[in-house]
């Protein structure tokens, strides 16, 4: 979607302000939100792409105003409600609906480290032949998907070079809609900074993006 989250190349956000000796969490609730979201994720009612889309679909003004973990909190509530893990009434009252059974959590403390170490790889073995090879010139498609996509606006219609083939990976655009993994070849594509930003850009600079086959045409 052409959302406010797609920020590459925007102006007006001011300088980057690093914080010295930054703590991992700025308040205990931030850690709880991170952990709650990941622990609920263990129910496998949604996937990483649907999770990201739930953040992207926050109202734009809220997206810009809220901190990272405030966005995660809003998103995990949306996801849990959407998946039927909790009801609106339970959320409002803070009490379990007595008509629902008490579940057994899939992620227990003893499994946390192994779950982290395992992660959720997105590479999939397929026998499809890649359409492009390293060194080939490609053009990012001028498309505007209304749902989740990893094709940022700033490269659409621009010409780049295939740098590397990563094999087939889960396609976020369909996965976010629960319409299947549709694994397809993922490429790193190099775009000259001048192709993206014009003559003011440094002639030697470049931006590299990881783009799926459905985002690309031969050029």
């Amino acid at each position, binding site marked *: 979607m052409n959302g406010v989250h797609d*920020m*590459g*190349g925007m102006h007006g956000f001011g*300088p*980057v302000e*690093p*914080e010295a000796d*930054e703590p*991992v*969490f700025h*308040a205990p*609730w931030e850690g*709880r939100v*991170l*952990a*709650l979201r*990941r*622990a*609920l994720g263990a*129910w496998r009612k949604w996937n*990483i792409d649907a999770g990201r889309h739930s*953040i992207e679909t926050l109202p734009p003004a*809220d997206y810009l*105003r*809220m901190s*990272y973990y*405030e966005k995660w*909190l809003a998103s995990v*509530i949306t996801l*849990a409600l959407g998946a039927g*893990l*909790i009801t609106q009434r*339970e959320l409002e009252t*803070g009490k379990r609906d007595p008509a629902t059974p*008490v*579940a057994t*959590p899939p*992620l227990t*403390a003893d499994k*946390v*480290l192994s*779950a*982290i170490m*395992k*992660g*959720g790889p*997105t590479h999939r073995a397929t026998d499809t032949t890649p359409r492009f090879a390293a060194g080939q010139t490609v053009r990012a498609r001028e498309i505007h998907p209304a749902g989740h996509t*990893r094709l*940022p606006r700033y490269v659409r219609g621009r010409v780049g070079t295939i740098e590397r083939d*990563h094999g087939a*990976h889960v396609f976020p655009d369909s996965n976010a809609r629960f319409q299947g993994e549709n694994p397809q070849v*993922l490429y790193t594509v190099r775009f000259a900074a001048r192709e993206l*930003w014009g003559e003011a850009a*440094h002639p030697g*600079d*470049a*931006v*590299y993006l*990881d*783009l799926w086959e459905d985002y690309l045409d031969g050029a």
Partner: protein
Amino acid sequence: MAGDHDHDNGHDHDNQLSETVLRVKALETLLVEKGLVDPAALDAMIDAYENKIGPRNGAKVVAKAWTDPAYKARLMEDATAAIAELGYSGAQGEHMVVVENTPAVHNLVVCTLCSCYPWPVLGLPPVWYKSSAYRSRAVIDPRGVLKDFGLIVPDGVAVRVWDSTAEIRYLVLPERPAGTESLGAEALEALVTRDAMIGTAKVMP
């Protein structure tokens, strides 16, 4: 959350924060009561990211690459496997790529669409990495962003920006500083900062 939240008013901000604290507590209580989450698992997750998984992991990878040419070759060929040799793998680093800084090339990592970051080797991203300022500018004005960090990249050096748009996570292998030839892996590791592995700093001797 209030739509008329005023950033200039510290009191309102405190109220909003305490409201958030209460909402998180209420949500956790509900989820625990429903048996959907195990509170001890939440504690273990927080402990992992506060105490076990952070940039010291990445610094070990860098120091080993600097001191062990065979390891460096494996790291550049298949970073996921080479990093797993040191015991680091998994969530938000399932597929790793290492990009090397040289006298001619400076690499910088960003995620313009969200906050993708190599958790197994760097831990959770700092606030600035997730900020609108960094995400918007790193691709259009990388040299200006680096200046914000006090790093001037000479005209003769190419800047390569890696926008982590997929599930591939990037780690910058910084240049080993001159004058550190006599140092072993452990001493080198102490010099390697988080920012040097994102590309917003150099490693200083």
